[in-house]
């Protein structure tokens, strides 16, 4: 079951958009971080069930943060939310352990579907 969601993005507008797209009926606890480094620290602190991660960020980019999170927790569910949809970027994100990838700007439908997919995966793990 997904309860805690962490959004890692350097853009306050992007965080606002993400929060507005996350369904309100499930009472998710939402957390955010302004770059990969802060995201990594918050991940350790709050242990979210699901993380939405941007790729292009200052200090520590999304690839680096994803790699560090997967080292900490191989079962982490990290969904990349990015405008960088180059084939090589997508492949690299998957190689580093991303659960899935969403194109920016997201929609309510794409976010709801991604959360459901993540929840199903968690349920299967038991």
């Amino acid at each position: 079951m997904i309860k805690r969601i962490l959004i890692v993005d350097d853009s306050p507008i992007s965080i606002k958009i993400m929060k507005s797209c996350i369904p309100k009926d499930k009472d998710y606890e939402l957390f955010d971080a302004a770059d990969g480094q802060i995201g990594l620290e918050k991940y350790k602190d709050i242990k979210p069930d699901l993380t939405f991660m941007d790729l292009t960020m200052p200090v520590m980019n999304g690839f680096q943060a994803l790699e560090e999170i997967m080292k900490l927790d191989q079962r982490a569910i990290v969904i990349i939310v990015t405008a960088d949809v180059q084939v090589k970027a997508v492949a690299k994100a998957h190689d580093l352990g991303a659960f899935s990838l969403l194109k920016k700007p997201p929609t309510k439908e794409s976010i709801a579907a991604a959360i459901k997919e993540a929840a199903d995966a968690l349920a299967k793990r038991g």
Partner: protein
Amino acid sequence: MVRNKNTKEMITAEETDILQEIMNIAFGRAASDLAEYIDIFVILSVPYVKLLHAADLPPYISKEIKDYDKVSVVEQNFWGKFKGNAFLIFPSGTGKKMISLFDGGDEFIESDPIYEMEKETFREVGNILIGACVGKIAELLGDVITYSPPRVVIEKSHRGIVSNSLFDPDNLAIVLRTLFEFNEKNISGFLFIVTSQESFAWLKTALHKFLEQYE
């Protein structure tokens, strides 16, 4: 981000943030388009938005690219409600590295002077990056734009790359800047998109409409 006291009320911090995110999305898509066309991986950086007086635009861009001795530039104008100029700027020597990215580059070398090949390569890359990026910005803001053909200048001093007469010097301009690298060829460059004051009223409304979709 907006430092000049006189320009402060022209664009708010929130509008700057929206524009920065839109530029991020648009350049990401442009990079993907280019990577589909030629086999490269474009490393993106966080875009930057700045409001300045048009008279300060040429020295601002010269300062940004000061590490480049000579530059090659692709310039394209665009018109719609979103109106302005785009400059794709590469350091000296990029053209020759870039030619090899294109299929059939070897055949090209046999038949054409290197200068013409470089020009054609820059035109092609500029067309894709500028066209896709500016086009996506316009699309996200509900506009449709047309473009001038790209103009290419090769191996010129970075001073005077942007003309003083581009905009009315008493007016303001918004500059969107992003730095990028082509991973495989150690190529880096800047994209500047400059929009003039006549687009401001429309732009502010369009930025708020973009965000309202999510409220």
